[in-house]
């Protein structure tokens, strides 16, 4: 008989002011009590919180746990199924219907072929920063536009459509707008994507969305797939680039080591992914009664998996709260695990390796333009963690010419 479980209060919770890169204190406390705690969802429903690495990984690989939106048991009313194409919130076989046609377009080899283009886009933004001179907001000058341009080019969103589209995505990913604004942004995005899909069907161009119109997917499905790819492609990498830079600036010895030795770049990217885990939490719902670490998860109960806390599990990572770019280990949960593991992870790695490397090479004296504690963070209500803005500056006479 296991002792009664530790209980975690309702999230969102605040992060420690001294180290905003660490998970909220409640979750760190929970993990000290074991890999699983009782938890109350914000809607009042009882659930569980998983904070241990091995347990999170096993749940993610377990087909007895569902990703379906309509099975989420977190509020008093039932949720509708995920719209067609939004495969992140589906189980098999629906999930595969949408993911399978995309897999061949996001392979390691295909992403490597984009290296030169990512370098070019990065260089253009660094040139513009150099021309403006500091201080600049790294979020708007660098972190957002680079992944946005790249995913838009892959999918086939025309250049002139990007600004308004970016604004809408920002509204529903930022975690700070009213419900009305949220609905307006979502509706505008849906309408835009419907027009885009129709345009690609009528006049296919050289991009992933046009290629997908050749298959048996309906316009509604293509719209859903596009939304997932664009939202995931915009917001995740953008936040990793800006929050990653902020983390490096607050760990000057790590930044110096990275600047000195370019061979540390790939490892630094993995470590930032682990350490920051900007996609903080995901949900799974038990399809049947499941025993986990001595607890019974009853059928129909929704568990929250804290990827961020799991990626700081001391049973998996030595000195887990240290940012150490020389760390070696096999795997982390930043891109999840199981059948839903990030489709665009090789793209994200490429973008981070190229852009972070180029940024620190170009501006060797890069530093915060405001006191570190004044950097505004996204609220915990945002699905993806990050900074709202990151004012940085540098010594112009020390900048390396393009």
């Amino acid at each position, binding site marked *: 008989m296991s002792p009664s479980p530790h209980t975690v209060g309702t999230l969102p919770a605040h992060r420690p002011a001294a180290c905003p890169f660490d998970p909220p204190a409640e979750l760190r406390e929970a993990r000290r009590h074991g890999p699983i705690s009782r938890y109350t969802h914000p809607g009042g429903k009882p659930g569980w919180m998983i904070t241990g690495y091995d347990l999170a990984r096993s749940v*993610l*690989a377990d087909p007895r746990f569902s990703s379906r939106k309509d099975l989420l048991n977190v509020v008093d009313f039932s949720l509708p199924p995920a719209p067609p194409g939004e495969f992140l919130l589906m189980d098999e076989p629906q999930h595969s219907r949408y*993911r*399978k046609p995309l*897999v*061949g*377009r*996001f*392979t*390691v*080899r295909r992403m490597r072929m984009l290296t030169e283009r990512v370098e070019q886009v990065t260089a253009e933004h660094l040139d513009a920063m150099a021309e403006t001179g500091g201080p600049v907001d790294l979020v708007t000058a660098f972190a957002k536009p680079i992944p946005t341009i790249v995913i838009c080019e892959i999918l086939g969103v025309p250049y002139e459509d990007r600004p308004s589209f970016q604004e809408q995505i920002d509204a529903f990913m930022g975690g700070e707008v009213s419900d009305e604004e949220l609905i307006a942004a979502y509706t505008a995005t849906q309408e835009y994507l419907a027009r885009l899909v129709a345009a690609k069907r009528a006049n296919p161009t050289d991009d992933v969305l046009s290629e997908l119109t050749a298959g048996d997917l309906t316009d509604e499905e293509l719209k859903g797939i596009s939304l997932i790819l664009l939202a995931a492609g915009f917001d995740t990498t953008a936040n990793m680039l800006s929050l990653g830079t902020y983390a490096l600036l607050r760990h000057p010895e790590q930044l110096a080591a990275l600047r000195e030795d370019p061979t540390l770049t790939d490892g630094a990217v993995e470590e930032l992914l682990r350490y920051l885990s900007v996609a903080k939490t995901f949900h799974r719902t038990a399809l049947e009664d499941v025993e986990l670490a001595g607890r019974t998860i009853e059928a129909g109960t929704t568990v929250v998996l804290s990827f961020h806390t799991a990626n700081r599990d001391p049973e998996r990572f030595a000195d887990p709260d240290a940012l150490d770019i020389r760390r070696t280990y*096999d*795997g982390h949960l930043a*891109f*999840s*695990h*199981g*059948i839903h*593991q*990030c*489709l665009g*992870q*090789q793209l994200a790695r490429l973008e981070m390796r190229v852009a972070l490397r180029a940024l620190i090479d170009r501006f060797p004296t890069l530093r915060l333009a405001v006191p570190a504690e004044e950097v505004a963070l996204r609220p915990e209500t945002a699905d993806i963690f990050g900074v709202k803005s990151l004012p940085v500056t540098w010594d112009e006479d020390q900048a390396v010419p393009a």
Partner: protein
Amino acid sequence: MTPSRVSVDRERCIGAGMCAVTAPEVFDQDPGDGLVILLDTDPTASRERAARTAAGVCPSGAITFREPGTAGS
């Protein structure tokens, strides 16, 4: 004929590409469907280490090692 030591399940594979990154001499991704291709069914010791790591990080459990002494199918 010796049964192969490494095998892959293309039905389970989700094309994350971790194996192709971790053990590129043993695994690749099909350029068409992006799913795993086994390049070396019986890797030498030096390749085996990387291949085992790849099996460990595979998100869908699509890579299996047949251990010595276990019956072949």
